[in-house]
Structures are given as C-alpha cells and as structure tokens.
C-alpha cells in the first residue's frame, strides 16, 4: 500500500541541471551485487535487506539499494517497501554520521528535529531527482550524502542567516587551564614536525565548522593554504588574487577565528 504523503520541507528543484543528468560507471562490486539481486526471489531479497551490519555477510551495499529504489525494483509492494525502508535507514545513519562527526556547531540542525527532517528530505529528493542511468549516489553513497549535506547546510545558513556555534566543542587549554582560542592553536605553517602536522590535522577536524562559516574569500584562502598545503602564490593563482591579497585574507580569517567574529 502506498502511504499518504507527509508534510516536508520545500525543496528547491532545478530538474534540468547538469548534475541530475550526469551518468557514472558502476563499481564492479556493485555490478556483482546487482547480478546477485536479480537472481533472488522476493523472500531471499527480504532476508538480505534485513541485514543491518556492513560486516555481516550478505549486506547489500547502499549504492545498490539506491539503484533498486530509483528504478522501482522489487517485484511486489512488500519488497519495494523493504527496499525503501532499508535505504531510509542508511540515509538517516549517514546524515547523523556527518552531523555528529563534523557539524556539531550547526545549532539550527542539532537542536531542531524539524531541521533534521528537512535535511534528510533534501538528500532524498536529490537521490530521486537524478535522471542519469547511473547516478553518483549509486557509485559513492557516503560521498554523495556528504556533498549534498554541505550544499544544504550552506543554503540553510544563507537562507536563515543562522549562525553556528562551537559550544559543543571543548577547546584545548593552556598550562593555566585557560581555553585557547582557535587561532592560538594554529601552528606556523613553516617547518611542521610530523607530530605538529598531526596536531594540525586534528585541529582542522575540530574546527572545520568555524572555518566553513568564514566569509567566502577568507575561507577559500585558509582552506587552500592550510588544508591543501598551497603556498600563498599558488592560492593566489587559483583565486585570481595577488600573493599579498591571499596573505591578507588568511590573516583576516585567523583574526576572525581569534576574535570569534565568525559566529557573531
């Protein structure tokens, strides 16, 4: 039985964009899985869909579930329902995974279940919006969720003019127990030891929310120089700016992080 429609977020649909039509090569392991699934009867497929752990034998990859769902595969409503439910589980787990790992700062999402439903709706809509034979979600499901969530968070930030917070992150402290500002934790980019490089990596993991909320040019300059290890000259070339302008943006970004301007 087809369930009644539910109220969900309005999602901006631009069905003719390039993304929705781009087709990809399926991964060989996913092809093998599809070949297996096509040979299964309804009961066998239901049994496979009931396997929830990736480590368990017979676990159907999420990419294959997307293929089945977006092609109306199943042979019966019962099996199609099971495919939809399994895919929704993967989507919700993926969504929460990214949220918990990377975006705790985004209060508007973490504190509102409605916003989370909107986020899941956005990603789901993008799964079914694609008109390609093989969509990106059928090739790299985890990456697909990450990319779509990034789009969605950006649009939400712009739309609602909400500001993130790093209250959820525990700032490292100095010898006297005073919390260090984010900028104070950024080591010099010259002459990093392996330990310092590792610390830097961990630091980026903990403050990526703060960086993502910086103004566009500051954010891009910081990311290119620190995250992609570009020199100011290289970053300037990519951004169409002079070396000194890049330095200026990086400095402004670090000041913003130090002063907390990025969430004011």
């Amino acid at each position, binding site marked *: 039985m087809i369930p009644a429609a539910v109220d969900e977020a309005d999602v901006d649909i631009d069905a003719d964009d390039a993304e929705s039509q781009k087709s990809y090569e399926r991964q060989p392991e996913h092809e093998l899985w599809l070949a297996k699934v096509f040979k299964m009867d309804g009961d066998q497929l239901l049994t496979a869909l009931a396997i929830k752990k990736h480590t368990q034998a017979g676990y159907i990859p999420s990419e294959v579930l997307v293929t089945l769902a977006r*092609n109306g595969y199943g042979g019966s409503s019962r099996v199609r329902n099971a495919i939809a439910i399994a895919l929704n*589980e993967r989507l*919700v787990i993926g969504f929460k*995974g990214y949220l918990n790992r990377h975006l705790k700062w985004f209060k508007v999402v973490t504190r509102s279940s409605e916003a989370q439903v909107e986020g899941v709706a956005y990603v789901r809509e993008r799964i079914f919006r694609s008109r390609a034979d093989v969509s990106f979600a059928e090739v790299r499901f985890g*990456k697909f969720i990450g990319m779509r969530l990034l789009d969605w968070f*950006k649009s939400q930030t712009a739309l609602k003019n909400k500001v993130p917070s790093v209250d959820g992150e525990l700032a490292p402290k100095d010898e006297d127990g005073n919390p260090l500002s984010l900028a104070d934790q950024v080591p010099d980019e010259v002459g990093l030891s392996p330990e310092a490089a590792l610390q830097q990596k961990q630091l980026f993991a903990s403050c990526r929310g703060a960086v993502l909320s910086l103004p566009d040019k500051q954010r891009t300059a910081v990311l290119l120089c620190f995250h992609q290890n570009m020199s100011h000259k290289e970053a300037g070339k990519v951004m169409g700016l002079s070396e000194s302008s890049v330095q200026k943006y990086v400095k402004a970004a670090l000041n913003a992080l130090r002063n907390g301007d990025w969430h004011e």
Partner: protein
Amino acid sequence: MNDITRSASSEASVLIEDFLAANPLPSSEQWKAFTLAHPAHASQIADTALMLTLEDADFDADELDVELFNATRSAMLNAVHLNSVPVAAAKTALKVCRGPIARRYAREIGLGERVDLFNQMLAGELSAPYVLVKRLAKTLQVRMAALAEVFALNFQNQPVQSYKADGKPNALRQPVSWEQAVRDAGITGEEAARLLHLEKEMD
C-alpha cells in the same frame, strides 16, 4: 542563487563527483592538483575537501536515530512507490522487441539465433544472465534494474494454466535457471558452452 551561480555550482558538483568517483579517498595532494586544474571552482572544491577528507565516515558505527527514521520513513516509501517512470519506460521500449525484429535484438545482445531464449527472457520465464539484461538495457536505452523489474512483472502476470485431464497445471513458481533453459532448448556443444559462459560475463 542566480542562474549563473547555480550553473557554476552545478558544474562544480559534476566535476567533484567525477573526481570522487575516480578517487574514493583522495589525498591532500590529489585535492590540491584537482583544485589547481579547476581554479574557477576552487571555493567549492576546498569546502568539499574539508567536508569529506579526514576519515571516510564509518556509518556502520552509528546507531539509527529512530525518531528521525520514523519522521522520514513515509516520505521515502512515497518516493520509491511514486517513482514509476523508469519501469514504464522499460515496458514501452520492450514492446518494440516483439515479433520478427526480436531476432535482431537477440543477435545484438549475444544470443545469436536463439530467439526462443530471447522471448523467454522477455517473458521473465528464465533467469537471464546479468550481462544480457545489461546489454539489452543499453540497446534499448533504458535502465537495467527497471528492465529486470519488467521481466519479473511479466513472469508474475503470466496467465495461470487451467487443470488438464492428466493432472495439475505445470505452472512455474520461479523462472527457470539459465542452464536449465539452455538445456531445455536442446542446445549442445560449442553453442551451449558459449551461452552458459554468459553467466560469468559482466560486460
């Protein structure tokens, strides 16, 4: 977002997806080289790299948020059930395969002159090798999984045989295996070996 910005963003998304399809776990150096090759999209590439680098999310380790799952369940069920276009397209495309032209399609997908097997495949009576479904989908320009679904539906919709004087109807409960279908067609020798090998092919 204006049209130009939206178009640029969409173009960047396609480029990044291509990159990630080819490099599932890109290193910083790979992200850097990718950014240098596409400076016009540096900002979006840098943001995505930040989002996706470090650990590749191990979703398995996460517990299901039951509340969020329940709140989104109906919408996913709707999305799947209302998504009937691919199957309808496959059904329509299959109509052109009936009749004398079936021989041409049988040859095109690698069945040679075995139109009988081709027709059985369309009717869903046999469990066709994956590669045949794939090739036919490509020839007809429809999605493979939708085509497989049409075969399954065709099998389910076969008329049930009535009782015969000599006993119960011999209706199939499941499609016959490919091997059985080849054997039942009386094919032997090299041709049988070639057809049976299709089960092992993927392209």
